[in-house]
Structure formats: structure tokens, C-alpha cells
């Protein structure tokens, strides 16, 4: 008999604010929600910047802060919010049993050092030798650690004392899905009782924009709804996002007297080659599996990125599910906080759990009208996340009454 899986702690940080109240206020109590977009610092690309964080609140030692760059700081900070929310702070025994699965990208490069070296390389008589010399003298030793993907988890262990185990998944958007899925599967099967899972992403980083720009994946026009972008060439607006969840077995949560935000009922992932229609076929199958045996409609939090073909396919699929009465209404999280890559799926599960626990839903932020205001109070919410390049994931969260 599979064990029930509960979400008992949430840490959420974005351009809209910090914590659940701030997000509820911005997304459910403000109509329409007012996204915060930076259109100048990385022009022509707009992005959703992180709100200023008082790092001392979650990363009290300045020495720890100095060992990290913004991405790891955001992750460690947001993980701390989730642990506090779940009532784990100070409980050394439980933190020592808490397993961690983090979805990570790369930390920041020293773009100033890179820039100086590139200028020198252009005129160096022996470029490769010059590169060796300058890297040896210009790279800060600590920066390597700030760049290593698994050092977000490492820093969470150091700062927050989570030491049950530590695993870091890679692979952009789908890594966030896989992280939550593996946690869900392990708890159901009794391979662990309590987990910290999540990810973080910093938008506006020039090193990351370079990587995304060379693939032509960024939206360069005026900010627009993801649902409007496919017809205009498509593209992603990156968002700074931190999302961490404490997930545990129902028995474990009840034994320590914790109430859940929601039940994590199912997570599913797959990966197509993205020939026309393949991603939608995967998602349609996942939707059937997740909602099996139930005819009442679910609300959907879509992770659509605005990439042309994928977002068009997802929109068409969701429109068909709405027409069939299986989906009540849709919200694209990227329209309010941007695309947070590895953090996207954990953030959607967090927002879904938030809406269920507050017995309400979010206001549309979509000038195309695809997102309808009506839909009532959902009891079940499906989160979709398709990678910009690869991966199709879906999760179902349900109200616990």
C-alpha cells in the first residue's frame, strides 16, 4: 500500500516577494496581478528580478554568505524559509534525517574576470598560454565552489544542517520535475520519510543569457503573455525564482503534529524528441493517468515558457481539455514570475499547494484572454512543466480535507 505524501513546508521567493502571504496577495488579491519586470538591465531581453532579500535572516553567518554567489544564496535562503515553515529549524535530529534532492543549474561565472581575459586574448601573442597565466592569477578559488551545481545542496547542509542525504539533479526544467517525482516515489515506497526538495534560478545573469541567446530561446520583444508569444516567433522571459518544499509521509507529518498545505498525489515525467505533437501526446497521457477515474475538472498551473511550438501545443491541448470539461481554468506561472528553469516545477507545486490551502485561486494575468477568470475554487490542481528543449512533466496536488 503506497503511503500518502504531504506538502508540509513551503519556501517561495520571486520578483513578487518573499513567502506565501506576499505571493497570495500579489496573485490572488490583486486583480490583475502586477508582474515586476526589468526591461533595461539585460536589454533587449526583459526578465523578472528577485526582490531584495535580507540574507542575514536565513544565512546568519557572513562567512557563509561570502562563500556563495547570488544563485546559491537565493537557494540557501529559500530553503531556509521552507524548513522554518515546516517547523524543522533547531530540530537537529530531524534535520539529520531529512533527505535533500535539489534541482540545480550552474552558479555564476566571474564575468568581469572573463571580460578582461577576453580583451587580453584578442591581442596575446600566445593566446592559450596567456589564458593559463591569467586564469591562474585572476580566478578566485572560492568562485569554483560557488559555480559547482551540487554546492547549493552543500551550502544548505552547512547553513541549515540538513544532512540526511544530498543529491543534485541536473537538466534544466525537467530536473525540477524529476526531483519532486523521485521524492514522491521514495516516500510512497518507504524509501525515506521527510525530504527537502527544490531549486533556485537567478535571471538577468549575463553568463546565462549568453547560453540561452546562442540558442535563440529568449523573448526580445515587449513583455507579453506566454500564450501570445507563439504567433510572434516565441521565446522565454527568464524569472528569478526560489522554490523549496518540505515533503513528508502523512504518518510522519501527523506524528509530529504538522498540517499539510496539500497532498502531492502524483508526479509524472517523460521526454519526447519534440517532433510535432509528441510533447502534447505525452502530456495528454500524463493528464489521463493523473486524473484517472475522476470527472470533475481540475485547475491547471502551466509552466509554459513561451517557446513557439511547445507553448502552442500545450495551449491547444489545454483548450481541448477545457472544452471537454476536464480543466476548469489555466494560469501560466511564467506570466507572473517568469521562467525559473530548474525552480519552475517546484514553484508550481508550491503555488498549487498555496491555492488549495487558502481555498481560492489566482487571478489571470494574460492579455490574450486564454486564462479565464471564472473556474471556482479548485480542489485539485495539475501543474505542467515542459522544458524549453526537452522534458515533459506533470504533477497533481489535492486539497486535504
Amino acid at each position, binding site marked *: 500500500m503506497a503511503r500518502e505524501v504531504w506538502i508540509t513546508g513551503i519556501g517561495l521567493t520571486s520578483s513578487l516577494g518573499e513567502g506565501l502571504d506576499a505571493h497570495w496577495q500579489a496573485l490572488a488579491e490583486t486583480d490583475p496581478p502586477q508582474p515586476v519586470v526589468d526591461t533595461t538591465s539585460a536589454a533587449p531581453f526583459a526578465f523578472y528580478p528577485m526582490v531584495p532579500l535580507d540574507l542575514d535572516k536565513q544565512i546568519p553567518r557572513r562567512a557563509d554568505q561570502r562563500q556563495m554567489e547570488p544563485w546559491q544564496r537565493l537557494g540557501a535562503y529559500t530553503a531556509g524559509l521552507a524548513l522554518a515553515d515546516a517547523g524543522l529549524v533547531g530540530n537537529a535530529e530531524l534535520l539529520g534525517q531529512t533527505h535533500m534532492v535539489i534541482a540545480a543549474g550552474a552558479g555564476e561565472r566571474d*564575468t568581469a574576470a572573463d571580460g578582461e581575459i577576453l580583451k587580453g586574448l584578442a591581442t596575446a601573442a600566445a593566446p*592559450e*598560454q596567456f589564458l593559463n597565466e591569467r586564469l591562474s592569477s585572476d580566478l578566485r578559488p572560492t568562485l569554483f*565552489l560557488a559555480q559547482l551545481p551540487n554546492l547549493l545542496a552543500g551550502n544548505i547542509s552547512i547553513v541549515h544542517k540538513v544532512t540526511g542525504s544530498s543529491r543534485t539533479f541536473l*537538466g534544466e526544467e525537467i530536473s525540477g520535475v524529476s526531483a519532486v517525482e523521485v521524492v514522491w*516515489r521514495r516516500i510512497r515506497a518507504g524509501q525515506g520519510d521527510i525530504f527537502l526538495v527544490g531549486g533556485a534560478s537567478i535571471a538577468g545573469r549575463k553568463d546565462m543569457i549568453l547560453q540561452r541567446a546562442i540558442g535563440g530561446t529568449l523573448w526580445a520583444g515587449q513583455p507579453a503573455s506566454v500564450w501570445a508569444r507563439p504567433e510572434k516567433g516565441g521565446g522565454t522571459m527568464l524569472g528569478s525564482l526560489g522554490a523549496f518544499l518540505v515533503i513528508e509521509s502523512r504518518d510522519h507529518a501527523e506524528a509530529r503534529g504538522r498540517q499539510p498545505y496539500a497532498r502531492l498525489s502524483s508526479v509524472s515525467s517523460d521526454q519526447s524528441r519534440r517532433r510535432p505533437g509528441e510533447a502534447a501526446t505525452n502530456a495528454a497521457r500524463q493528464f489521463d493517468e493523473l486524473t484517472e477515474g475522476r470527472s470533475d475538472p481540475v485547475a491547471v498551473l502551466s509552466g509554459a515558457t513561451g517557446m513557439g511550438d511547445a507553448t502552442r501545443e500545450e495551449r491547444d491541448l489545454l483548450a481541448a481539455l477545457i472544452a471537454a470539461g476536464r480543466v476548469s481554468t489555466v494560469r501560466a506561472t511564467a506570466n507572473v514570475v517568469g521562467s525559473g528553469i530548474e525552480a519552475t516545477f517546484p514553484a508550481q507545486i508550491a503555488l498549487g499547494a498555496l491555492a488549495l490551502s487558502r481555498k481560492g485561486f489566482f487571478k489571470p494575468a494574460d492579455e490574450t484572454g486564454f486564462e479565464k477568470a471564472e473556474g471556482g475554487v479548485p480542489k485539485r490542481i495539475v501543474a505542467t512543466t515542459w522544458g524549453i528543449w526537452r522534458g515533459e512533466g506533470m504533477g497533481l496536488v489535492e486539497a486535504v480535507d
Partner: protein
Amino acid sequence: MQDHRGRPVVAITGIGVVTSLGQGLEDNWAALTSGRSGIHRINRFPIEHLRTTIAGTIDFIKTEAGTAPSLTLAAGERATEEAIAMAGIGTPGNFPGPLFTAIPPVEMEWPRRRDLFAAADPAITDVYDRLIDVACRINDDFEYKSTLYGYVAEQLADRFGTRGAPISLTTACASGATAIQLGVEAIRRGDSDAALCVGTDCSVTAEAVIRFSLLSALSNSNEIPEQASKPFSKERDGFVIAEGAAALVLENYDSAKARGAKILATIRGAAEKADDFHRTRSKPDGSAVIGSIRNTIEDAGIEPSAIDYINAHGTGTPENDKMEAMSLEAVIGERLKTVPISSNKSMIGHTLTAAGAVEAVFSVQTMRTGRIPPTINYTMPDPGIELDVVPNQARDAHVSVVLSNSFGFGGQNACLLFAAEPA
């Protein structure tokens, strides 16, 4: 068959490996058991101004791009081909289970940055703005995809036809072990009857060498490359960075038997414990490393006395080897002095992300052949480390239970426990 906790037993039915010693299990095993080193002078890039000029690069694999992700993929493909062929599982391009792949972090490399900069508009003041401006105009699909973290696993999944979304992962130098652990867990859950676990890492670039150098992690014994990696010896002075790839086909023991597969070994235990002490150093009391070893033995449901060989993490850094010996003694006790323990890294160097998987393959081969590969370059014992390191010469021994350790930066500790096939 079920284990002591009523879980399906996990069998290994295929293994494949590539290191600086060569391609394939046979060549690697011959070299490893004859005490040959694959460490050599770096010739992939100029070594001027580098403190460390040696490595265990795989120089016989070439790719058109020549970049870390392309080489990492190529090595991973070769190891996987060998493992799947040995297991005789599925049909070509159709592996009946999920893929777990340990990969190194990859990114745009210096030659590419230089090319972009050379094509840039000098009127743009910020260097990265210049690069981005060029990037937008050229739209290089391969550069984009191959520098995504999902790239290597996606290519492997496509080529070998694994099921579902592949999982790419890193736990630094414990990554290979973690990939195997994920496969073990999936089979124990009954999610799948088979899993493909791969660790691959061909990321030795000038910048990688410099970064590890700046952390004082690398051996500077450049004069005689073959003698630089000297785990457990008194004059050890760091690890030797290296490349490698390994793949293991894991299966539910019963379903493997049912299809007539040859069982190479079983995985009895897999566990980990994170350290919260420091980004690159273990807790002085060894409690996290000890916890990882203890959890693994407990997961396997055996007594420490059952372990008859230890495949050491054995990096050759002053810190690791001392900590590993101390932690093993805490778990195994006085008997540790008589348990053979050797470090493959003395010959192949530290294959980083791949190490846990590469050393898992060699652990299995140790049991299959009854021959323990040596720790070479062991000429000056460290009086503080009393271990039977199988010095310099391979040794014949009946080995039926192997503990393999993997530890990494970021407080990563993961161990695996292999057993010979139950007769």
C-alpha cells in the same frame, strides 16, 4: 528473490568502462591488475603557467567539437554499448528501463568565447554584452544544446532507447555512486525491472585544472606522471585529475534470471550521509563518512566482518586518505588492518563524476576474477594509516563482499556494497 527487508534483490548484468588505460573491460582490467598507470603529461592544451601538468585524460577519443560535453558523451556511449552488449538486454536502441547519468557541469568553453569575442562589435563596452550580441546573430544550435545540463543524458537516452525522462545528476566526486543508487532504488520500488546507470566525465580543460589547483587539491608531482598518484602513502600530495566513463546494467534479480541473463554480482547496499562541516573538508570526527559507511552496511543487512575487500575512494589527498582510514576503522574496528583495500585512482587518477561508477565496475570485476588490483606508487607508507593497501602488486584472493566508497566536495558521501552472486 528478496533481501532482508523484503525488497527485490538488485543484480548487475552488464558493465562497461573507458579510462585513460584504454577502452573496454578487458584492456582496463589487464592494465589495472598489472599495475600500469594511465597518468601522463597533458597534451590536450599547453601547460605553460600550470602548477599541475599531468592528468589521466582519455586521448584516444576524438570528437569534432572537442569540447567537454562532446567527449563526455562519446565516452559514455562507449561504456554503455559495452554494458548493454554484455547484459544482452532489450533490443538495439530499446533499453527496457530508465537512465540515471552522472555528468560533469558543462559550459561554453574558452575557444568559443574567443571566437564570439573576435566577431563582436567593439562599440559595445561590456564584454558579455558583446558576446550576447554576436550570439543572437549566429544562433548556434549545437553550442546551445551541448552546453545544457540535460544534453549528455538526452543523447544517451535517445541512442539507447531508455524509458521516460532520463535523470542527470551530480554529487561531485560521489556522482557515479549516486547514479547507481538511484537505479537500485528504482528497482527496489518495483518501478522497473531494469535500469541503466552511467557515470561519465571527460572535462579536463585548462580552466578545470587551474580551478582544482587553486583549491590545492591536485598533486604537483609533475616529474614522473605515472608516479604522481600515491594514495595512502606518506608523500601523497593531492589527486590527479582524470577522465573516465562507466556503465552498469542493473536488473531485478528474478527477472534477470528468468530471461537467462548471467548475473555478474548483486548490489546489497547503497546509502549516503551528508556532511555539514565545510565545503571541501569532512567533519574532523569523521561522523558523516562513518554514517555513510554504517548506513550502507545496515542497508545491506550484513555485519562489517563480512566485508572482504574495500575499493577505496583513496584520492591521494592528505586529508581524504587519513579521513577514509579513520572512518573505516571506526566501523570495521581492529580487523580493518587485515582487510585488503586498494585505490584504483593510483593508476587511473580521479575520474571525478565518473569515479563511483568506474570503481563499481572494477569492484565487480575484482569479485569475478578473484584478483585485487593494487595501490601503486606505495613506496613510503604513512605511519598514521595502518592499512593493507595491496601495495604495488595485484593479489589473488577470494572476494565475495566489496565496499566501495565515494566522497565529494559539498559534503557528499555515498557508499555501495557489492556481493558475488548467491550460489
